[in-house]
């Protein structure tokens, strides 16, 4: 187990060092940018639009993320379910029924 932790952190550190060194090389060979106010303005296709933080619609986003987490966890349960006979099949059928019944209901509520 410790070998696995060591090797995974080794490849993570290697990838991190690789990408950070590319970034550093870039900052060495690139010319310094001469900043003007037009250059530092946010890109807006030539229109005069000020920079503004946009709010994410958190309520609908939350529902979406909850759906994602439920289905991701069910997929994770499926991956660890081999060798248990009929139970994974029953589980699959339950998820299938949930999709078939819940998605139209969710649409009707909007």
């Amino acid at each position: 187990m410790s070998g696995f932790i060591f090797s995974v952190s080794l490849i993570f550190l290697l990838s991190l060092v690789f990408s950070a060194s590319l970034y550093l090389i870039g900052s060495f060979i690139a010319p310094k940018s001469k900043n003007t106010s037009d250059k530092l303005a946010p890109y807006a296709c030539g229109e005069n639009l000020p920079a503004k933080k946009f709010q994410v619609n958190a309520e609908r986003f939350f529902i979406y993320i909850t759906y994602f987490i439920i289905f991701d966890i069910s997929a994770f349960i499926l991956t660890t379910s081999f060798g248990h006979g009929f139970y994974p099949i029953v589980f699959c059928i339950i998820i299938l029924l949930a999709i078939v019944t819940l998605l139209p209901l969710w649409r009707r509520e909007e």
Partner: protein
Amino acid sequence: MPFLDIIVFPGLLFLLFLAFFCEWLDRKAVAKLQNRVGPKHTGPEGILQPFADFIKLLSNEDIIPAAVDRIMFSLGPILILTLSLMPLFLIPIAGSSALVWFEGDLIFIMFVMTLRIIITFLSAWSSTNRFSMIGGMRVILQMLAFEIPLTIAMTGPAISARSLSLSKIVQFQASEHLLLLAQPLGFVIVTICLLAELRMVPFDIPKAKTEIVKGWFVEFSGKKLALLRLTEDFELVLAASLMVSLYLGGPIGPWQTQSVLYFFTKLVICILILSNLRALFARFRIDQALKGAWKYLTPLALIQVILVELMPMVIP
């Protein structure tokens, strides 16, 4: 795990070569299908063009707009590149076991892919631009939706091989049969989902050039854009090599032989499938893509898993 392996042959430099080669192959194939020439002048048949593009972007002036959140804006490309490079070390390339493997690295790869989506959204949000924001929202909607059928369809090979490790799945295919023959439906689902995860043309909604001018890429320039372009190449390699090692047997050739050449040939075939699909379709709308993922791909992936579970009971 010798150090030279990680740095040179199945490791970092080889993966870098594969990334640039795959981008060249993809661009050339799409250009041929669209009756264009494609990259031509840099090197033989333009094979050095992606590398030249990368060097050119790396040496460009890097503009950081005044309104951005500087820390996340600078860290984002580095982290995304890290997270797209890391899972490639878990893919069995040269032999039937990868450089780094452990029981459960398939789940680890999926986890890293999900983490990458979240960091993509954060760096889109940190660049404080309306196009970036819309692009970031679309990234998170589309890629999380397609993650689910992808994960469920990937459990098919895991259940067949009775293991959650990519290397074990490849070894199972060496001793038994190719999983493409047993699970063709799963292969189709995984191909479609990987196309969406790569944000290639039928699913290039997050960076649709004609609607939201490259989406969340808008504010990035210079070295950051170079890193993001390199990330896309690594993602292409990762997608194609996932298809290869889950369904086509990785580096396993006929008569129990193993060679990196078999892996390379299968990788080229998978890239050609992906770029053929890219040239064939037009862009979907975001609601069409999400509807397709939830209503059709997820039930089909579940049916595939049910079939995989039922198969050994019906045919002993």
